[in-house]
């Protein structure tokens, strides 16, 4: 192969591989927010000052809401080194590079030696302030030796990944290294910074070698007595806690882990996990606590591991350490638990204990439990607020107002908020106040009229602004960033839930479907104009379900009028933000579809003419046919069987909504002109049948299809055609009445039988009483086989040619005839 050819192949392969990689990355998207599985308007991400305790925000689906440490151990170590070498001018960036970011080769060549840097420095590190500092003066030289030793140690404890190498960790070598470090540490008299680090490494190595007793001895004999604020002492303490666990003293181990939890945020998650895994009796651990802070940490850990509604941890921590930030976290957890179990069910209708919901007695007792807990928590919040001992007592007052909203007492909620007006709130707490105000305003409105909508508007505008700010803050981050979920969309999620779970139901309650539909649009589009790509113009997939399934033509006409009215209220202008001139074709597409459902075909033609039509007809997905050739809707074919569906195989025979509407309108005109034209009736009936879920053109009147549609009954207003085929049946019968041809009559009767079959209700599945359900299902099948039109087929058309065809194709008819023989 000539060289240039090979190069071209390599280049093309590389580009394809690269682009595929990009596509996969983009397709993966960010991780979902683990905090977003229940409805909450009281989020840690908004009200708490930092994310130190984010792993412990309430989330009953995980052991930890966020499994990552919130503080970087590497950053702390780097900062300690920077402090140690501050007079020599070492920068944290350069320190971090040498400690954590050099490749194996550089480490091996330059550092892993008892005399590091004896071969000089690579060009990339010539100006590294850390290394220059280490070489600059005698004292720092010791640090350089230490650096060489820990770099040398790394391959021993951080084994390179060679999967088929059967050699296990060389515990003897690790143990010996540990002893050598111990000697170094014990002999280091001058430099406390290095002494602690040598001793920590010694303990760590002995720990890794499985010599827990000796490792704990290093801590007890050498490290415990060092007075230092270095976090390295904390890492040693964590090792000691683990060693005690291995040696069987789980109570002492749990106690030490609670100390690490309190004092070393870089090891907080690790300490919590280990505390929990110890399963030590809390009462015994508490006995070891030496002061209130230590007790508070133990109570808090117990509280973070408690998924029941329970105020004890909150009350205990408050009693002994009211200033602890953990009080606020525990308070938040109790609110979130109520949101998960009580509020979410109240708003969404999907109860937390959904299984128990059917058992009304259990449900009632649960409601009492929730109500009592809300009252208890509210009373405690009032106490916190009155005593003002916690950090940010305003939080407790806000919680109280929120609980009042949760109970439906907007009067009490407003009163609590009003009492806050004298307080100067920081941004976080003021944001929460705004959210509660929005919720209370919505709750207090008996009816959403112009007056109440105007009251609501400022809060909605504020929320919208917050959502935008949040989006902007996220924009810098690539979508595939695996850490993206660390910044949950707090405001966006709340906005989504407010519109869909509070405003939409309120409008539906006052029978205002149009405003409910707009509320849902705002929920899904975040009060921004709908962003439509050209290929989406013919699909209303971007519209919410309520639009696709519930809107009638008069609703949409009303919307179009509202959109065209320049004098609409500011609230309405805001509320209709998602609808722009660009989105109008989508709305006309929906209107055209709704007219098809309403059999107003002339109006459908007019509406669909507002929608830009593609040059080619859209093929349907080829799931029923074996070949891969494109196939198209063909709404006027007539077949004895529904499956496999018969499609048009060439584009020139294909239909789209506009062509279908035009032909149906023509048929309606034809029938008016010639009322006895049975062919026109038959064709009209076929058009209706084929746009049902059983036909080849279902997408002309529906935006979704499922193989379970036959179980759905009459749920949507267009189901009389889509699942029940009642209009088609009527027109097949009309056609039958207008013809004298017995074969055509038989065919019309058979088609009417197919329509009638769809009206036989399929029994709702009941897994709790499966046997009864099986009986009901058997009864259903019996009904299907006793279709009333089958009697007519047998009685009136037994001698037609058509019935032979029908018997060959239709097993139900065969079963019926067999049973009557």
């Amino acid at each position, binding site marked *: 192969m000539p060289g240039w050819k090979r190069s071209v192949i390599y280049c093309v392969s590389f580009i394809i591989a690269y682009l595929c990689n990009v596509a996969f990355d983009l397709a993966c998207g960010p991780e979902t927010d683990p905090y977003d599985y229940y409805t909450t308007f009281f989020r840690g991400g908004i009200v708490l000052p930092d994310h130190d305790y984010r792993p412990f925000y309430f*989330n*009953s*689906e*995980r*052991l930890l809401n966020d499994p990552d440490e919130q503080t970087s151990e590497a950053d702390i170590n780097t900062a300690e080194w920077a402090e140690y070498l501050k007079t020599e001018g070492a920068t944290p960036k350069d320190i971090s590079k040498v400690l954590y970011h050099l490749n194996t080769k550089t480490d091996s060549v330059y550092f892993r030696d008892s005399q590091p840097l004896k071969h000089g420095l690579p060009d990339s590190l010539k100006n590294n302030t850390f290394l220059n500092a280490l070489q600059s003066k005698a004292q720092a030289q010791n640090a350089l030796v230490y650096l060489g030793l820990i770099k040398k140690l790394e391959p021993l404890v951080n084994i390179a990944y060679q*999967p*088929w190498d*059967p*050699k*296990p*960790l060389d515990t003897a070598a690790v143990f010996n290294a540990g002893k050598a470090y111990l000697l170094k540490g014990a002999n280091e008299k001058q430099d406390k910074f290095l002494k602690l680090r040598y001793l920590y490494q010694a303990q760590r190595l002995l720990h890794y070698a*499985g010599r827990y007793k000796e490792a704990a001895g290093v801590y007890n004999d050498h490290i415990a007595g060092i007075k230092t604020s270095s976090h390295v002492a904390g890492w040693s303490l964590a090792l000691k806690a683990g060693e005690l666990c291995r040696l069987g003293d789980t109570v002492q181990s749990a106690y030490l882990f609670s100390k690490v939890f309190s004092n070393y945020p870089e090891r907080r998650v690790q300490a919590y996990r280990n505390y*929990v895994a110890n399963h030590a009796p809390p009462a015994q651990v508490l006995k070891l606590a030496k002061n209130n802070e230590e007790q508070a940490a133990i109570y808090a850990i117990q509280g973070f591991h408690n*998924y*029941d509604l329970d105020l004890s941890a909150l009350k205990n921590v408050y009693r002994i350490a009211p200033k602890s930030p953990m009080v606020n976290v525990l308070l938040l957890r109790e609110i979130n638990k109520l949101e998960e179990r009580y509020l979410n069910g109240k708003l969404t209708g999907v109860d*937390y*204990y*959904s*299984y*128990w919901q059917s058992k009304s007695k259990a449900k009632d007792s649960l409601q009492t439990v929730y109500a009592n807990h809300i009252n208890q928590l509210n009373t405690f919040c009032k106490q916190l607020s009155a005593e003002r001992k916690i950090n940010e007592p305003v939080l407790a007052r806000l919680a109280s107002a929120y609980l009042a909203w949760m109970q439906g007492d907007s009067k009490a909620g407003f009163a609590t908020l009003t009492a806050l007006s004298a307080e100067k709130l920081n941004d976080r707490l003021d944001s929460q106040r705004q959210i509660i105000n929005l919720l209370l305003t919505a709750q207090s409105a008996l009816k959403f009229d112009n007056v109440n909508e105007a009251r609501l508007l400022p809060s909605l505008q504020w929320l919208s602004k917050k959502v935008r700010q949040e989006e902007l803050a996220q924009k810098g981050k690539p979508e595939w960033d695996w850490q993206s979920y660390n910044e949950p969309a707090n405001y966006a999620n709340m906005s989504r839930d407010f519109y869909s779970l509070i405003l939409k139901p309120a409008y539906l309650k006052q029978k205002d479907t149009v405003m409910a539909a707009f509320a849902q649009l705002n929920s899904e589009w975040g009060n921004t104009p709908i962003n439509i790509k050209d290929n989406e113009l013919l699909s209303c997939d971007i519209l919410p379900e309520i639009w696709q399934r519930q809107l009638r033509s008069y609703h949409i006409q009303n919307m179009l009028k509202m959109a065209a009215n320049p004098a609409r209220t500011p609230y309405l202008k805001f509320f209709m933000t998602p609808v722009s001139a660009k989105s109008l074709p989508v709305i006309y597409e929906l209107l055209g579809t709704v007219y098809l459902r309403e059999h107003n075909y002339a109006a459908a033609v007019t509406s669909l003419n507002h929608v830009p039509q593609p040059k080619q007809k859209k093929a349907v997905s080829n799931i029923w046919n074996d070949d891969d050739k494109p196939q198209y809707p063909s709404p006027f074919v007539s077949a004895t069987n529904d499956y496999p569906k018969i499609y048009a195989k060439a584009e020139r025979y294909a239909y789209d909504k506009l062509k279908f509407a035009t032909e149906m309108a023509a048929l309606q005109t034809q029938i008016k002109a010639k009322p006895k034209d049975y062919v026109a009736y038959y064709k009209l009936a076929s058009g209706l049948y084929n746009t049902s879920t059983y036909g080849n053109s279902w997408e002309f009147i529906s935006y979704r299809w499922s193989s379970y549609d036959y179980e759905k009954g009459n749920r949507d207003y267009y189901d009389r055609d889509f699942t029940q085929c009642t209009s088609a049946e009527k027109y097949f019968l009309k056609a039958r009445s207008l013809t004298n041809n017995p074969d055509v009559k038989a065919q019309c009767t058979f088609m009417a039988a197919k329509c009638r079959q769809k009206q036989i209700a399929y029994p709702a599945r009941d*897994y709790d009483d499966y046997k009864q359900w099986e009986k009901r299902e058997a009864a259903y099948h019996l009904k299907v086989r006793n279709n009333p039109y089958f009697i007519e087929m047998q009685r009136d058309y037994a001698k037609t040619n058509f019935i032979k065809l029908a018997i060959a194709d239709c097993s139900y008819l065969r079963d019926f005839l067999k049973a009557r023989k």
Partner: protein
Amino acid sequence: MLLLTMFLAACRHERKVSTSFYYWKTVYKHNQTEDSYLRHFHSANLYVRIMDIDRDEFNGQAVPVSPIVFKDSLPADLNIIPVVFIVNDILKEMSTAQIGSLAQHITGFVSAKVQQAGKKNFTELQIDCDWTATTRDNYFLLLDKLKDQPALKGKTISVTLRLHQLKNQKNSGIPPADKAMLMCYNMGNLRKYGTQNSILELSELKKYLGDNLKAYPLPVDIGLPLFSWAVAFRNQQYIGLSKRITGDTIKNQREFKPLNNSLYSVIKPLPQFGLQPNDVIRWEASTPAALQETAKYISRFLNNDTVNIIYFHLDETLLKNHLNARLETISNLLR
């Protein structure tokens, strides 16, 4: 006639039964209780899981997963029989060259691990794989390649045999091995909601065994279960095995409400077990009674004069539920 019957019964040759265990943990350490079982049954062999082999999630290569670490050497009077579990799926797309290389890797790795166990040599290597019709050819090729390894010359290559492979010999084929170990467990539908015991249920076993066992062309050892587990369901759909739940945890009535003999409803959120309220746990155990019933049934279909029973697996907490004497009864039933 009675006398004749007695005579015939007396003539029946007593079968020699040897008992051993699987060691299926990732760290080998001496344990007095476990050792006492080995001694009680005069076990000559211990079947030690060396590693699983699965696909590396980054480069797709077959690699060892959780290889065993020997904290102690095996007792001097106990032979090691290394066992390697191969995830069936990895065999699907392997080339002949890759299979040859895998056989080499397995041999080297197993030999080194045997040394780490304090043993100079081993006489048998067991391969555990739930092979299917689509992986059969590659799996059998791997077994052939293993036999060709110089370091395995003269050693027995045995394979595990699952019930479906025994029943469906036409599709599953007969592996080119020296013998097979029939796994008399994991037979029911684990994922189906209900009260069945998917670990060991005689009625299920009967569907597979019978003449299929009698006519199997390889010598067959018998594997019997000692383990128990918690099968978790949500809305009656299988969600997994909750490994942290033990026989003691399930008895905690503040967390689990008994629904009947084997089903328990979860009362409160238990994130440490990955469970939510209303999840249902099916507690499945291999009871001494079920083991005895099984042994009695199997006994009829064994052709050989000797039979090896291998219990899965040697673990102090599991052995608590199976007294020596009861396991002894099982050996007697197979004699």
